[in-house]
């Protein structure tokens, strides 16, 4: 029988860089979907929250072995995974609705379907996907910063709400601090990602904290220097920032940035679902075998496609239908691939025997 620690190691084992990418991508998902204007208080709130999180995680990093997970903590992870998947999906729905994107609910359903399937794959696949995703996001952020650096207005660093007092300023910082915590769901993943390698663990957590604590405030500061005096604006500040940067006018919801936001959100939901379905120490198979309820996925997906075609929505129908069919096809494709592999293996074995 496997021990609890081994079970944990099997479930969320990945490379250091992949762990950093996973934590950052999960944070980016809610950053893209956030609905608060970029301000100095927001940047400071994230920075301070990151420092506090680092201090809280320090004792965990001093351990020489990975923390074991008992039955109770596994259930806590599962509950949190379910809650976090719902939270991210709600944030995505809110973002799509605010951007007046077509089919916001359907997009969330399809996102969930794809995330469900992705969650059934081995965790190594998620690790590789987030590594790739963060690389793409990093390149895009670099282009964004380069595209807008010429038009920065340094004076806007001193932007302030008219007639504000030091008390309101402190209150704003506190609100931003609390918000930064409420968006740091990836924090719960950290103990799951810790392996029996203290140096690797420290590198991973430091990379994540540096990326979050410096990268996000830098991006918010950049937005602040571009967004003018709209400190009371209650909209998605990131997509607003894109409208203010030349060659990035993507406020109109279509384009690379929305796809990146949706992909990050999909990854965050996938990781949450993998937490939701964390294997207990006595169960077998871990992530190699699709969950039993995965068998149900094709049915709602087929219904979604049928409903789309009944409603005669040509352009978007084809696209949404394509995604749904992909979701349906992949599990069977995987089984086909496994069968082909076993066939090949059998032939090889027979060949060896014949020789």
């Amino acid at each position, binding site marked *: 029988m496997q021990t609890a620690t081994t079970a944990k190691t099997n479930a969320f084992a990945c490379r250091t860089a992949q762990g950093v990418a996973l934590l950052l991508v999960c944070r980016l998902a809610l950053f893209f979907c956030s609905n608060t204007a970029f301000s100095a208080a927001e940047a400071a709130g994230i920075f301070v929250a990151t420092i506090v999180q680092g201090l809280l995680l320090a004792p965990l990093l001093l351990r020489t072995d990975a923390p074991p997970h008992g039955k109770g903590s596994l259930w806590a992870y599962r509950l949190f995974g379910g809650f976090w998947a719902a939270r991210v999906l709600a944030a995505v729905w809110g973002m799509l609705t605010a951007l007046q994107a077509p089919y916001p609910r359907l997009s969330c359903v399809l996102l969930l379907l794809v995330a469900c399937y992705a969650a059934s794959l081995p965790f190594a696949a998620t690790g590789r996907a987030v590594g790739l995703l963060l690389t793409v996001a990093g390149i895009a952020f670099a282009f964004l910063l380069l595209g807008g650096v010429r038009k920065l207005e340094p004076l*806007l660093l001193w932007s302030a709400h008219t*007639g504000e007092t030091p008390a309101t300023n402190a209150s704003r910082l506190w609100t931003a601090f609390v918000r930064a915590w409420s968006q740091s769901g990836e924090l719960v993943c950290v103990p799951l990602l810790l392996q029996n390698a203290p140096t690797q663990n420290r590198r991973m957590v430091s990379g994540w904290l540096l990326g979050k604590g410096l990268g996000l405030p830098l991006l918010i500061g950049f937005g602040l220097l571009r967004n003018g005096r709209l400190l009371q604006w209650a909209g998605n500040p990131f997509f607003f920032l894109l409208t203010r940067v030349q060659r990035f006018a993507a*406020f109109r919801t279509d384009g690379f940035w929305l796809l990146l936001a949706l992909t990050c959100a999909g990854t965050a939901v996938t990781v949450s679902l993998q937490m939701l379905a964390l294997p207990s120490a006595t169960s077998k198979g871990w992530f190699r075998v699709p969950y039993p309820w995965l068998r149900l996925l094709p049915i709602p997906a087929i219904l979604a496609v049928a409903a789309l075609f009944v409603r005669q929505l040509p352009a978007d129908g084809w696209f949404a239908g394509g995604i749904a069919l992909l979701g349906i096809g992949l599990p069977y494709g995987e089984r086909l691939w496994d069968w082909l592999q076993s066939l090949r293996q059998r032939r090889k074995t027979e060949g060896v025997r014949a020789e």
Partner: protein
Amino acid sequence: MNRWGLCLGTMLLGGATLLLLGGCTEVRDRQYAKAIAVAHTPDATSWQAVLCCHPTTEQATAQPTVSAEAVSLLPERLQAQMGPALYMGHLSTLLVSGQDLQDAAGTALLEWGLQTHWLPPDCGVLDTLTTSACAVLSEQPEADWEAMRNAAVASAQIPSRRLADCVGDDWNGSGVTLLPCLQNTQGTPSFALSVRDASGLLGVLSERACRGLALLGGDWKRCVLPILQTDANGNRQCAAAELRICKAFVSVVERTDARLELRLHLRWDAPLPSGGFCTKAEWQSLCATTLTDTLIAALEESAVRYGADCCYLRESALQNGVALAKTATQPEWRAALQAATITVASCTQTDAPFGWG
């Protein structure tokens, strides 16, 4: 999981999917507005939309005017008239008119449009002054207001002013905003800036002041300034100075007599035109004088005459530790700007394209 569990799960998931699909917005039934006109009167606010591609004509088409007593009723009325949902994500121009556009209802209109995401924050605003915006839009539904406005910004006629900038001035500026406006000067339409506050239209800035604000804004692509000179015989000569570099900013400091001082810092370069207009030294002197006059006119007309703060003067004052900027209410800040003095702190001719500002 047994067979009954599978059936139940399937029914639940399938039912949830169908329920979620029930609320979909159909893309084909959407109308995309290219320009919107808002004419505000004390009794009602009228809106008119020009659609990007009308389903029947495939051309930009002006819709009949819609009026509503309350701002929040306008989208519903507009949609009721047109049928399909109106999508404003592609809105490029918002035409406004009315003496009291910036009164309580008028401000609420722009703010409400922005806060409810009904109006995109980056759409251009155009003031039609005393002419009804709806009338202007219905007369010229095919006009490309966005292209005209962009051309004016690129040639430094006016600064780039978007809806977000106007609302930002109202929220965290001095409560006075500058809107690009289209006016007829001797029969020729030209762009200028109208000044509005809560009491309504205050006036229109001169061409020189608008150019000065465009240079301060820094969004221009090509700027040609007329340089005038009177020769020894008393003949007036004119040459065109094409600015290669013009970086200007204003810093706000508090003087010993508690008044504000707007200090103008300027760095510029304009090549001497061929044809023996004057010597290089004379050319530099003439250009410097013209440029500083233009920028001073901009500050005098906008900040000192009307108390408008569209060049981040308050932020500059905060940066320089002016106590008033921290504590003043909007009317107080406006009064302080109106009592301010303007000085030229530096005016440097340079070949270096990069540097401060």
